[in-house]
């Protein structure tokens, strides 16, 4: 690698560098202020805001970083900074910001103030892992960033140690994750054997040659998919999700369900797009290299995922767990955006994620605020809450309706674009299945409403009121959910301009 290249490369990873520095500052601060840790969250907040700022100014500064010297494909590096990555990074950093806000008022997190420094450090570790996952174009970097994300999340999901279920969640997550990443690593090794490289672009050009062994390639891809599928919790690699989501602290559950999933999807999309797509035609349809039947795989996986998620959610009595299954179902919907293999589909994914972030985090926030008060996430404990806590009740209603995908909420726009993409690709049958699934999903979302509103409050039903900051936060999320439902041009514009993935 030439040194000239290094400076350019460094300029492309400024957000990551800022993030790393913030992490180090945080750790240092934690050591310095070990008596009074009140300031730590603000350090984290500052770090995230800074990172966000640098992420945003990265717009326009696109290119490959860290090109391999020995390669014949010199202009492809192992790190790509492109509009696509910026979009997902923004999703990640915004949700991180929200998670920090959540953490301010989460009872669970308040109980571990003495370890708050580690908590934020690990969150920063997660963010860093996600950032690299989003931009990585080299399988090894992918693997390591995934591991960085995973290791931090393992710890965080068992971080509070308040209940049995925390450590149980951590252990399950750890074992499941380790195996999945092990499988993935083995798959990567096979790809390495087939092509001699771990760089996605090089692999792409090599597998276009006819002599590649398809079976082995398929085997390797499936193994790698197992690793990614676990991250985005798509069936049948989702089994950890409900257990971990239920066990982990709410803030972490929320973070996992949005940011971690976004990173996973970014990874999957980049992996598929850069490795297996030969070119994009003028209509925005991606032409797959005929080596692996991604279409069949993804269609079946996404249908399975959403069906399984929705139908399992029907029976959940714990709201966190219900939301876990619902997030699995949403992963299924989002996968549909990839299934169409077009820019249109990608756009739908972008929009869906932006929207999903708002509504899902909103829902988790409310579950958290209520859990703070009543100490439970069981749906039966929500009886009559809609009357005693009107503000949170209404907000929760809007989030749930948005999750169902009904207008005039943003969730509808997400679904709309998804179906637009599907219909555009003439995949009507799939669209019908997805639509029917969203009807099923109505059952369990409305079930919450039923408990909140259709059951009259008793004397024991507590009145949950949000503090002023939380009120503002909830209102902001509600407002965004409604506004984007009625005026979605900004989201769509942003998605439209983020379509570009470096490479082909």
């Amino acid at each position, binding site marked *: 690698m030439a040194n000239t290249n290094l400076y350019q490369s460094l300029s492309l990873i400024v957000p990551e560098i800022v993030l790393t520095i913030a992490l180090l500052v945080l750790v240092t601060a934690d050591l310095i202020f070990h008596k009074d840790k009140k300031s730590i969250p603000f350090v984290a907040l500052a770090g995230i805001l800074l990172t966000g700022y640098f992420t945003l100014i990265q717009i326009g500064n696109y290119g490959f970083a860290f090109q391999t010297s020995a390669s014949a494909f010199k202009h492809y590096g192992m790190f790509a900074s492109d509009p696509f990555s910026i979009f997902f990074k923004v999703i990640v950093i915004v949700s991180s910001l929200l998670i920090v806000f959540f953490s301010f008022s989460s009872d669970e997190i308040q109980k571990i103030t003495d370890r708050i420094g580690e908590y934020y450090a690990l969150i920063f570790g997660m963010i*860093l892992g996600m950032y690299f996952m989003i931009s990585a174009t080299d399988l090894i970097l992918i693997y390591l960033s995934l591991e960085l994300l995973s290791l931090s999340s393992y710890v965080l999901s068992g971080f509070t140690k308040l209940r049995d279920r925390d450590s149980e969640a951590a252990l399950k997550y750890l074992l499941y994750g380790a195996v999945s990443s092990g499988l993935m690593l083995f798959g990567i090794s096979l790809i390495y054997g087939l092509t001699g490289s771990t760089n996605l672009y090089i692999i792409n050009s090599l597998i276009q040659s006819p002599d590649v062994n398809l079976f082995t390639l398929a085997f390797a891809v499936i193994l790698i998919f197992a690793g990614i599928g676990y991250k985005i919790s798509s069936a049948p690699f989702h089994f950890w999700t409900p257990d971990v989501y239920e066990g982990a602290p709410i803030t972490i559950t929320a973070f996992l369900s949005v940011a971690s999933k976004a990173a996973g999807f970014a990874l999957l999309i980049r992996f598929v797009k850069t490795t297996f797509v030969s070119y994009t035609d003028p209509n925005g349809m991606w032409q797959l290299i005929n080596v692996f039947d991604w279409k069949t795989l993804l269609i079946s996986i996404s249908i399975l995922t959403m069906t399984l998620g929705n139908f399992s959610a029907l029976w959940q009595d714990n709201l966190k767990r219900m939301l876990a299954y619902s997030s699995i179902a949403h992963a299924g919907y989002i996968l549909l955006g990839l299934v169409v293999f077009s820019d249109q589909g990608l756009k739908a994914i972008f929009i869906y994620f932006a929207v999903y972030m708002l509504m899902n985090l909103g829902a988790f926030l409310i579950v958290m605020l209520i859990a703070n008060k009543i100490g439970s996430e069981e749906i039966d404990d929500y009886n009559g809450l809609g009357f005693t806590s009107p503000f949170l009740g209404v907000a929760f209603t809007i989030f749930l309706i948005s999750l169902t995908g009904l207008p005039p909420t943003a969730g509808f726009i997400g679904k709309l674009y998804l179906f637009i993409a599907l219909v555009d690709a003439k995949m009507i049958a799939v669209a019908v299945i997805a639509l029917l699934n969203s009807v099923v999903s109505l059952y369990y979302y409305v079930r919450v409403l039923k408990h909140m509103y259709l059951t009259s409050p008793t004397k024991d039903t507590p009145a949950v009121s949000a503090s002023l900051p939380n009120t503002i936060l909830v209102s902001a999320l509600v407002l965004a959910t409604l506004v984007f439902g009625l005026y979605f041009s900004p989201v769509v514009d942003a998605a439209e301009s983020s379509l570009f993935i470096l490479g082909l």
Partner: protein
Amino acid sequence: MTFYDIIFYLFAAITLISALFVVSTRNIVYSAFYLLFTFFGVAGIYVLLGADFIAVVQIMVYVGGILILLLFGVMLTNKITNVEIRTGTVQLLPAAIGIGIFMGAVVAVMIWTEWKLEPAQIPLTTTKDIGHLLITDYVLIFELLGILLLIALIGAASIARRDQE
């Protein structure tokens, strides 16, 4: 059969047989020791593959680090008074069938695939070249790995330490 081959089969046997014991012995402490042999075997295979530096790292990190960690784990999670630290097994049959099929598939893949074979000169010692690679081509990963270790440190420490009560 050349000497190289004989050495290979020797290491292969050590690796696989001890690995088999690792996963089948009921005594955890025994398992840990069998794992030691497995790691040694793998290190030998690395040597055969001309990867001396990796072999050394394997022994140092795995045997010197990970294995010790695992042994600590065994000791800390079992009452020492119990001489025979045994562990049960679960779902042997489905696992055996599934893994059997799986192994068949993997082995078949390995055999039937026509890998890219190209005779090549591997330098006798690789340390310097690896070092060079680490700060050029793989510098990003290298640095990232550093952060990963830091995070792992923080994480492990924070989760394992006793709460101040």
